């Protein structure tokens, strides 16, 4: 029973990490920036969702509100910060590290602003269904209707995203711009706008991850909460496991990470909460630095 519980918890947490990893990958593909502020943007969108839940009373209205808010914030960040960054800091010794530093600064700004606006009060989001475990043959599982709902929603969103990427012109433009911006531009794609769109999609995905991470935890939301530090680290690690360039890789990376953390906490020690992801990341980078689904060539990002 322990085993089944650990497995199901791992898969649920992993599906949330997958969403976070997807948003990292979308940003990486569109602008070649690893966005360390992604979890911060997810946090901000979750606060939007919280406002919507308290004002409108329904989780199912709040979720799209959070997604829309997340998409808007991300699009603005791309249009203002990232474009300025490309213009001003693409030469000199700082060039290689400027995007990293700028997105970290953004993370700090978002965290501090969120603390100023919402900090101190008890911010709570109640999930749409109960988080009490299913009972089978008299034993209660940790797996709950809420966790099932999270799994299904994440699955549906991924399906929609993959349909968009495979079947629509927008998806084609996104893929072309990621593959070769020059050629995409020559064939008439407005690469700048496609980039903004990539960021917006990432913002929406991050918003869902933030909302679910909150209700899947204890429901409270705070800028310094462990949930969001974990989201920050695990989104990045899941994306790296998958290879940063691949959406399927991100999904699998998230699930692998979720399961590994879950089993380590269950069978080794629950004190390894933050160290476990770090060790997993190092293992992956040593064995396959390009990630499971990454391209063969050595990365000189």
């Amino acid at each position, binding site marked *: 029973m322990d085993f089944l519980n650990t497995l199901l918890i791992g898969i649920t947490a992993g599906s949330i990490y997958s969403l976070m990893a997807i948003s990292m990958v979308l940003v990486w593909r569109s602008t070649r920036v690893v966005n360390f502020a992604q979890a911060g943007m997810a946090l901000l969108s979750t606060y939007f969702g919280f406002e919507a839940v308290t004002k409108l009373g329904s989780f199912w209205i709040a979720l799209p509100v959070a997604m829309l808010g997340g998409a808007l914030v991300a699009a603005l960040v791309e249009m203002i910060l990232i474009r300025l960054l490309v213009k001003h*800091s693409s030469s000199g*010794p700082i060039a290689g590290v400027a995007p990293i530093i*700028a997105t970290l*600064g953004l993370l700090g700004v978002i*965290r*501090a602003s969120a603390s100023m606006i919402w900090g101190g009060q008890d911010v709570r989001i109640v999930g749409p269904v109960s988080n009490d475990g299913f009972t089978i043959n008299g034993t209660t599982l940790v797996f709950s209707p809420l966790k099932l709902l999270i799994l299904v929603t994440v699955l549906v969103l991924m399906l929609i995203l993959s349909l968009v990427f495979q079947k629509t012109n927008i998806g084609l433009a996104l893929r072309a711009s990621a593959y070769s911006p020059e050629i995409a531009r020559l064939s008439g794609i407005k690469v700048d706008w496609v980039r903004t769109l990539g960021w917006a999609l990432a913002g929406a995905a991050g918003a869902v991850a933030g909302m679910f991470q909150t209700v899947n935890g204890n429901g409270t939301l705070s800028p310094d909460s462990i949930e969001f530090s974990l989201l920050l680290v695990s989104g*990045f690690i899941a994306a790296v496991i998958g290879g940063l360039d691949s959406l399927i890789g991100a999904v699998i990376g998230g699930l692998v990470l979720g399961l590994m953390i879950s089993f380590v906490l269950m069978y080794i020690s629950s004190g390894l909460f933050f160290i476990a992801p*770090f060790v997993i990341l190092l293992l992956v*980078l040593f064995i396959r630095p390009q990630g499971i689904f990454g391209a063969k060539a050595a990365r000189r990002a």
Partner: protein
Amino acid sequence: MHKKQSRDLLLFILGGVVLYFLSGMVDELRVYQGASIAVYVIAISSIILLTGYSGQVSLGHGALMAVGAYAAAVARIELQAPIILCFVIAVLAAAIGGALLGAAAARLSGPYLAGTTLALAIGLPSLANQFSVLGGEQGLLFDVGFPPLSLGEEFTQYKWFFWIAALAALISMWAVKNILSSRYGRTWRAIRGNEVAAQLSGINIARSKILAFTISAGIAGLAGALLSMTIGTVSPSAFPLALSFSLLTGAVLSGITTLGGAMIGAVVLVAIPEVADAVANRIGSSERVTTNLPGFLVSALLILTVLFVPNGPVEQHRARKAKKKNYLS
């Protein structure tokens, strides 16, 4: 070269003398802040060495500072080691940690390295809770003892902290300056400039990168031990993620390749909480604005600097001057 080095040494000694007299003239709070500035100068110079010269990013220097601080405190408590030995142990322990991290880092670049060190910065301090010898959440006491009596009755504890920190800062700045202008410094710049070209001219990339990480970590460890000296304790909460970010901000503000600018970054980092306090008082805001304003200012400053003065004020000034000269001639 030799002449220039002895001139530099003279300058550092002169700086020490000025600091010596200055510490006698200002009040206690300023002396304490002076000690903090000295600690930040050391920490920032470790980032400048690593990021500005060898081109590697570390968001984990807060964690490396923690390693140094814990090593010093354990040496003090368990072995009753003399204070100088504690600092040496701090440097060595952090350098070993840095060598391990550097071995991993040598295989990574850019965002991968940043993410890995970020995971470390979040994870490592919480590990302290796992071992009872490290004192858990409360942490350990780290007491460097009273100033020697020979310095006189009126010599305060803070002044003693300042003397130790300032001396350490002078020595480590001098050491870093020499390392950077040595063969190793040139090797690192070559790698940062073009890795493939550096490799073709016979530079062992991995070894140089690991060396840079080791030295930088050792310096960070010293800064960590000094930081915990000024606080009096070593605990996980003294080394939050925000510390790693502050150091990066300080280094970017100083100019990521301008070692002499470390002073600018350090002064700004120490001044920000005071400025934030003053601003918050002026607009009469609530408590949660006051507590978060410093963090906000640090991050906003980081973004603005990267966008508008990406290579630091000193470098910017130099570039503008060079441009003007070219234009005139």
